[in-house]
């Protein structure tokens, strides 16, 4: 592929998937970081254009996932002296403006569980695409998704039970 063809390929990839990559990033980080993530993902795609397989979205989301992880690691390194404990945790999803109990429950899950659920629920990927993003087989993905659902349900039960308890405490003098 010559330079012109490469540019056309990247432009086509960008036209088709840039908004989806932006949405993926925006669901996880602030707007400025999401813009930056899109730029980084497609810059990587340019360098590794031959590796991008059709359909391109799973590859791009896998790339975005690594970019975001790197950003988190960079941030963590900077904050390491302040809090080693905080550094080991995933950033929490915002709970305001959405399904609060569900977000709280998601925040209780580990990264592996949370990501497989979000790829399926928010990104709308099918199991094969989600498996590509996570770098596992389709069978492994099905197992991970099943377990993650179970853990989310359990976490949701705990959260909602806490909320009922809190409400009761507040209402009863």
């Amino acid at each position: 592929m010559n330079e012109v063809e490469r540019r056309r390929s990247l432009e086509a990839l960008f036209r088709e998937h840039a908004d989806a990559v932006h949405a993926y990033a925006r669901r996880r980080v602030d707007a400025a970081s999401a813009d930056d993530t899109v730029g980084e993902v497609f810059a990587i795609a340019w360098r590794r254009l031959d590796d991008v397989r059709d359909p391109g979205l799973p590859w791009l989301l896998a790339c975005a996932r690594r970019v975001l992880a790197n950003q988190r690691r960079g941030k963590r390194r900077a904050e390491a002296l302040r809090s080693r404990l905080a550094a080991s945790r995933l950033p929490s999803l915002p709970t305001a403006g959405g399904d609060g109990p569900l977000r709280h429950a998601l925040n209780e899950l580990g990264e592996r569980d949370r990501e497989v659920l979000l790829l399926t629920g928010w990104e709308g990927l099918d199991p094969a695409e989600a498996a590509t993003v996570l770098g596992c087989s389709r069978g492994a993905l099905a197992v991970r998704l099943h377990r993650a659902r179970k853990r989310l349900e359990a976490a949701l039960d705990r959260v909602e039970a806490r909320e009922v308890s809190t409400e009761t405490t507040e209402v009863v003098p």
Partner: protein
Amino acid sequence: MNDVLERLRADNPVRTGSAPSIDQVWARLERESAAPDRRRLRPARTLAFGMLALAPVVIVLAVVLALPGGRRVSGGSGAQGIGTVLVHYRTRTVYRPAASSGASFAYEFGTADVWVSGALRHRVETDYFVSRSGRPVGDPLHLELTTDGRLLEHFQSGSLSKVGELVQSRVGEQNPPCPLIVACGPEVSVDPLSEVRRLYGNGGLVLGAKGRRLNGRSVDELVSTGSGPPIRVLVDPQSLMPVEVIAQYGTGPWPASSLSTTTISNYRSSPLTPANRGLLSMRPHPGAKLMCGGPGGGGPVRPASPRGCRYTPSSPSTVQSIPPDLAAAFAVFRRPASNSDTLPAVNAVQLARGPATRGGVNPALARRVGDAQTSAFVVPGNGVVCLVVGGGHTCIARGGAIAGRLLTESFGASSFAEVVTGLVPDGVSSVTLRMVGGGSKKVAVHQNIYQADLARRATTMTYQGHSGHASVAL
């Protein structure tokens, strides 16, 4: 069990993304490609002057006409815009008038050496001449321009011009990005490779044809998409390095379908060092007389004082209505505006970028003047008025214009000498142009404008008006 997934889908906080432009990606890639290896091209932050040596129209009109009395400038000694890489390339441009013009000659710019560093700093050195059937006619004109985006310097020598004057002038402080590849004037420079990559990245150029043959090599053809003159760029398929640029012009004295073809060669990018920094500096002939361009890019060129040229910073506001003195002197400024008065985008960009902005010029108040063949515009400002012809413009103080001193000189399409276009006040029905070596030509005035295609260079223009006899030296 699916309930929880459905609940998750319903809670999607971002339904659709809104990605930024792909320009961000190209910019990031260019930054990255420049950072680790200085031998590679520096990022294309260029304000796009469309390659000074790209098109004779640019040189002849934007350069020649952009300054008072056909003198022009470019250059500077400051450090603004200077980069860390020095790009050098050579061009050769031929302007071929359309067959319909009846012209049997071409304007040829001999090899032009261009040095560019950063967004603004550049130097161009060239000898150019007129040719018939590929053979030069007359002596070549040596032209050298330098600029740093603030101060322009220009030096030329040759029989077609005043010899040995080094002219300095100020250019606009503001240099907004230029959307056109060949229409921004000499005050900014371009790295052709970065520029083509930038334009291809943002859609200003798109792929027109693949695998064309040019001098035994395979090239791809990119075509412009903007509203400016149609441009085709033949590029190396792998690197996008432009090897030939073909621009089409059909404005002003240039008949439709006229073409300029520029070949680009010897492209080289190297770190800017103290040793090669001098390549960006003006090198006039020893004893060259220092002249100063007028304020706001207008007014006559005058000898420099012993302390050099001094410029008074001024940034008058843009004029909002036709000034009364112009309306009183020129009928064209008294008539209401019409659609035909809309200034071409190329000219509007040049006015916006150039020193005319410091004269408070307002392109929205432009009036088309002359007949259909002339295609000239006058544009009022605060203190100045500009005459736009073809791809260039001249601005002078309003008082000078009212006295008949607003004129431009350019190379014509029907002769190899020059075209003189000028603005004269009401009551003048004709002007007389006297030529070098004797002889004169009487030219009719239409709507305050005269235009003459001369076989030889003119020395003076005279007319009889309401205020009596007037004589203007060219």
